[in-house]
């Protein structure tokens, strides 16, 4: 009788875990993050003189308002050029990224190729669009072509990463199954992998286009075409602040309408091209 009790007691003992097994790494990371934020805020505040926010605001309102729309046609033309730079560079980046991302996807390509391609993508992402623009202005001079090259290279880093991650999230076995029943590698990709990944690729490309329209407004600051060049000119003039204000308002309107449009198209893509599984 006693031995049976002892046995049932022994069965009740829960297996213990070591301290590091109990640790929740997400919580630890959050604590480290909060700690770093506190230190940084302290440092930033300490090194600066107290700001006179009100006089700053007053100066801003006096100089920038009312906005000067006297050169509205020039602004519109520059905005159109900005669009063109963004559209062309996004198109080239999508095409190139599709190939590059296949080489960077772990479930598709061999390890050495994946590592090499990812390093290349990291490198292109590291340089901001403005630096890319600066480099290509040296090659092509202050033209929109420099803007196109700059944004193509910049976008490659992002789209290559996004697309490869999308490919990696797909079940490659579907394509391999089609290969088993007679599909070539290309057909297995077109019919087995692409339909499952295309909604994500479209959505990411659209995001990149929105992003590039914003970036195309900036690259002009170093001479790579678009509305940025007008902005730069206006900022260099002593009396140009009201023009800067008009340009910024135009950019803001374009970016907001594009965000809304992008959101609507992305929703349509999710609903129509890639409906969720009924088990989700």
């Amino acid at each position, binding site marked *: 009788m006693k031995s049976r009790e002892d046995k049932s007691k022994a069965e009740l003992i829960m297996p213990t875990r070591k301290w590091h097994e109990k640790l929740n790494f997400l919580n630890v990371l959050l604590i480290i993050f909060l700690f770093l934020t506190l230190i940084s805020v302290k440092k930033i505040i300490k090194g600066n003189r107290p700001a006179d926010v009100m006089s700053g605001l007053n100066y801003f309102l006096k100089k920038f308002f009312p906005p000067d729309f006297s050169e509205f046609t020039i602004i519109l033309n520059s905005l159109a050029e900005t669009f063109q730079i963004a559209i062309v560079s996004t198109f080239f980046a999508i095409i190139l990224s599709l190939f590059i991302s296949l080489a960077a996807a772990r479930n598709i390509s061999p390890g050495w190729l994946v590592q090499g391609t990812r390093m290349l993508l990291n490198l292109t992402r590291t340089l901001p669009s403005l630096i890319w623009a600066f480099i290509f202005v040296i090659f092509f001079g202050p033209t929109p072509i420099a803007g196109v090259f700059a944004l193509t290279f910049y976008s490659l880093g992002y789209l290559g990463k996004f697309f490869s991650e999308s490919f990696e999230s797909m079940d490659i076995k*579907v394509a391999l*199954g*089609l290969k088993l*029943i007679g599909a070539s590698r*290309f057909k297995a990709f077109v*019919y087995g992998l692409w339909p499952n990944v295309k909604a994500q690729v479209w959505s990411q490309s659209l995001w990149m286009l929105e992003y590039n329209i914003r970036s195309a407004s900036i690259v002009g600051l170093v001479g790579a075409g678009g509305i940025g060049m007008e902005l730069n000119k206006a900022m260099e003039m002593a009396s140009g602040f009201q023009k800067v204000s008009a340009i910024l308002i135009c950019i803001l309107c374009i970016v907001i309408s594009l965000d809304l449009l992008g959101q609507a198209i992305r929703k349509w893509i999710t609903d129509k091209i890639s409906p969720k*599984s009924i*088990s989700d």
Partner: protein
Amino acid sequence: MISVKIQNLGLVRNQKWLFRNLDLSIPSGSLVAIVGPSGVGKSSFLSCLSGLEESTEGKIEYKIDSNSVHTPETIRPNLGIIFQSLRLTEHVTVLENVIYGKIANYGIKEAIFGFPKKDEEAAFRILKELGIEKLAHKWTSQTSGGEKQRTAIARTLNQNPKLILADEPVSNLDTYYTGRVMGLFRGLVEKKKKIIFCALHDPQLISKFADYALSLNPENPEKWNLREINQNR
């Protein structure tokens, strides 16, 4: 006409023999049920037959029309597989998945401009036979498990291969559609002289539809057993 000859086949998985010294000779027009508890090696045996997995020892030979001899690698144009995980393209319609059975015939043109109408109609007829014709233009991702399983079966039927390997093809189906699918398999075996290897659990289905039952033995891998089923249907 296709026949299969398996000689001295053996497979090791995780340092353990799943089956060994397996010798089978299957004539054309046969439905072979592979039976045994889960994990016994039914799927691995099917993988060996398709060449997806290389056997540790022995060989598999397929003979088509008594003149050409094939290995699991070269039989593929004549091989149809119904995977346990189905392997359907989720974000295309049910009809498109069925049409993919004939993927070897298509190129980039069909990917852009769509498939020939007669192929669509042929695929639709198969969907109708399996009772899922109403789902033809529905996204595969939005169908149920049983409907997906019937789609995968329809894809293989549309492919019309000489050899079919089916890994538990009726596991998600109700009694009615289980009978219907097994009846279709029986028809392919009897009328078109195909060979179907089918992992099955239900003894009633085996005695009703199979010609042979191959039992694998996890305790003793060499003691597999091939039983011929008396067909008085």
